[in-house]
C-alpha cells in the first residue's frame, strides 16, 4: 500500500492549470485545425457549404432551403426564423406547443394560402407542407407535398404536369441505404431545374 501525498493547494493548482493549458492546445487548436485541413483537402465542396453555382455565382446551398412565395415555384416548409423566413444566419423552430392557439392559426392560414393559390385542388394537404421545420432551413419537402403543388406550378408556367412530375422524381431522394430517414424532394434544386426547363 503506497502512502498518499499530503494535499496542498500548489499540488492541485500546478497540474490543473498546466494540464488545462496543454489539453486546450491539443483539443481546441490542434484538433479543429487538423480537421479543417483534412476536410478542406478531402471534401472541399462539402466543407465549404455544398454551394450551388449558376453562371459561376453561388445561388444557394444544396443543404439549406430558401423561401419561395410565387405560385410558379414549388414552396418549401414554413420557416420560423427571425426576422424573415429561411434566415440562414439565425436558425430555429417555432417552439409552439401542441395546443398553442397560435399553432392552430398558423397551420390553418397556410392551408388557406395553399388552397387560395390553387382553388381547384381538393387533394389533402400533407402536414409537412404546413408545419414549420426544426431548423427553419429545411431544404426538403415530402414527395406528397411536391405532388400537391404540381398542378399549380404547371398551370402558372404553362407546362405539362407529366413533365413536372418527371422533374420531381429526378430531384427526389429515396431513404438512404433504403432504411434511413424519409423520402424527400430538394426544393431549391427542383426550382432551379424548373427554371432550366424551356
Amino acid at each position, binding site marked *: 500500500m503506497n502512502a498518499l501525498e499530503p494535499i496542498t493547494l500548489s499540488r492541485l493548482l500546478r497540474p490543473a492549470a498546466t494540464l488545462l493549458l496543454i489539453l486546450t492546445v491539443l483539443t481546441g487548436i490542434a484538433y479543429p485545425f487538423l480537421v479543417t485541413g483534412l476536410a478542406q483537402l478531402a471534401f472541399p465542396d462539402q466543407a465549404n457549404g455544398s454551394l450551388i453555382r449558376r453562371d459561376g455565382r453561388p445561388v444557394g446551398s444544396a443543404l439549406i432551403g430558401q423561401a419561395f412565395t410565387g405560385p410558379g415555384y414549388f414552396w418549401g416548409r414554413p420557416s420560423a426564423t427571425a426576422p424573415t423566413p429561411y434566415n440562414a444566419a439565425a436558425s430555429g423552430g417555432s417552439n409552439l406547443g*401542441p395546443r398553442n392557439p397560435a399553432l392552430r392559426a398558423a397551420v390553418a392560414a397556410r392551408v388557406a394560402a395553399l388552397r387560395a393559390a390553387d382553388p381547384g385542388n381538393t387533394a389533402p394537404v400533407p402536414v409537412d407542407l404546413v408545419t414549420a421545420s426544426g*431548423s427553419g432551413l429545411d431544404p426538403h419537402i415530402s414527395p406528397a407535398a411536391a405532388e400537391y403543388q404540381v398542378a399549380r406550378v404547371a398551370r402558372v408556367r404553362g407546362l405539362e404536369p407529366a413533365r413536372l412530375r418527371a422533374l420531381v422524381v429526378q430531384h427526389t431522394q429515396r431513404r438512404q441505404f433504403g432504411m434511413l430517414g424519409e423520402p424527400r424532394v430538394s426544393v431549391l434544386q427542383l426550382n432551379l431545374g424548373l427554371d432550366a426547363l424551356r
Partner: protein
Amino acid sequence: MTNHAWSLLGLYLVLLLLSVWPLGRYIAAVMEGRVRWLRALERAIYRLCAVDPGQEQGWLQYALSVLVFSCLGTLALYAVQRLQVRLPLNPEHLANVSPDSALNTAISFVTNTNWQGYAGESTMGYLTQMLGLTVQNFLSAAVGIAVAMALIRGFTRHGALSIGNAWVDLTRVTLYVLLPLSLAFALVLAGQGVIQNLAPYQAVQALEAGAQPVPSTQTLAMGPVASQEAIKMVGTNGGGFFNANSAHPFENPTPLTNLLQMLAIFLIPAALTATLGHLTGDARQGWALLAAMAIPFVAAAVLAISAEQQGNPILTGAGADLNIGVAHDSQPGGNMEGKEARFGIADSALFATITTAASCGAVNAMHDSFTPLGGLVPLVLIQLGEVVFGGVGSGLYGLLLFAILAVFVAGLMIGRTPEYLGKKIGPFEMKMTAIAVLVTPLLALVGTAIALMTDAGRAGISNPGPQGFTEVLYAFSSAANNNGSAFAGLSANTPFYNVLLGVIMWFGRFGVIVPVLAIAGALAAKQRIPVTAGTLPTHGPLFVGLLIGTVLLVGLLNYVPGLALGPVVEHLLLWTGSFGGAQ
C-alpha cells in the same frame, strides 16, 4: 410504429450492441495504462504538469483535483467569451458575450450539460467555439469517464488508500479515447456535408430574389462545425454550433449522419458497462447493467415514436393531412411541427429519446413542439437521473448508485447486509448514495418552484397553459441532471435564468461527483468478501428487474406531481378537444 420505425430501432440496437464489447475492452486497456502508442506525448504532459503517474490519489485528493480542474476550466471559458471581440477568428465581429450568459455557458459546458441560452451563430466567434466550447466538450467528458473509473476501482481494489490519479486518467481518456474517436467521426461528418471552415458567412443571391417579403440575398452561417459536432456527440455534450443544433442541415445533413450521431451518443456510455465487466473480472455484471439501461430505453423509444406518429388532432382540425392509418411513404405524416423532412417522425423521435436517455441534450427536432406524450418521454428520461445510458461516465456511476440502492432495498427485504460486486455496503456508502440520488431532484424541483413564484421566472414562459409549466420543469430538470436539451420556447437568456440554472448545473454535477468519489474511497479501503449461498446475485434477470424498478420508483416518486401538472394535463386537454389556450 411504422415498419420503417421498427427497422430503424432494430438496426440502431444491433450496431450499438456490436460496438459495446470491443470498445469497452479498449477503454479498460486505456485506463489500465496498457494502450501506449502516444507514450512520448503522455510522458511529456506528466513532466510539464509535475505529475508522477505512479503516485496515486486518495478520494479526497482525486475529488479536489477534478474540482480545481473544472473551476479553472470555467474561468478560462468565461474569459474567452468575455474577450472574443479582441481575439482573432471572429470574422463576423460578434460582440463579447454578456456576463450572465457567459457564466451560464461556462458552467454549462464544464459540467457536461451544454444547456444553451444563446444562439450559436449570432453569439459565438469561431475561436470561442473551438478554444472555448470544443475544449470543454472534451474535458467535461473526460472528467465523467475518469470519475466512473475511480468508482470501478473502488470495487476492484481491496484494502487500498487510493483510487487512481486524476491527472493520468484525464490525460489518457482524452488522448486515447476521445480524440481518436472524434477525429474519425468529424471526417465522416465532413464527407456527408457538415461544414468545416474558418470563412466569413457566405452571402448568396436567393433564387426568387426580389419577391416580397423575402430578402434577395441569403447569408449562410459558416464555421468549424464538423470538429465540434463530433465531440458534441461522442462526449454526450450536446451543445450545438448553431441555434437549431442537430436539426440544422450544416450540423446534421443526412439520415446517415443522423444515425451516426445517435450511435455516437450511446457509444461510450454503453461500452463503459463492458469496461466494468472487464475490470471486475465478471463480464456478466456489465451485461446486467447494460440490460438495465437498454430495456427502459426501448420502451421509451416505442412510446415517443408512436406518440409523434399519431400526431396532433389540432393539426388535422386545421386542415392538414397527417397520413394516419395509411402506410405510404410519400409523406412522413404525424406531428411534423419542429421536425425536419429528411428525418420525419421515426428518426426525430428516436433521436429525442436517445439524447435525453443519455445526458447529451443535442436535438434534431424541437421538443417544445412534440405532442404531450412525445414530450413526456424525454422529460422523464432526464428526470430518472440520466442513468438510462446517461452521460459518458456519469451514466455508469449514476446507475451504480442505483445498484447500491437496489441491493440495499433487497437487503432490507431478505434481512442481510447488502453487498455489491464483492463489497459490503455500509452506512457511510448509503448516506453518500442518498445524497447523490436526491441532490438532483431537489435542485430541479426547488428551481422550478422559485421560477414559478417569481415574475422574472414566469416572464420566460412562451406557451400558454400546462405547456408553459412544462417548459420551466423541463429546463430545471435538464440543468440539474446535466442534460442540456430544452423545451426551447422558454426565453432563458436572462440574468435570472442564466444565474439560477448555472448554479443548479454546477451542483447537479459536482453534488453527485463528490459523493461518488467518497463512495469509491470507502469501498477501495474495504476487503473483498467471498460469494456465499446467501449472496444476492447481481447479474441475473431478477437483479436487472430490481434495478430498473429502483430507478423508476425513485424517479416517479420525485416527479409524478410535476408530470401530472404538465404533460399529463396537456395530453388530456388535447385529446378531449380543449383547443383553447386557457390559463
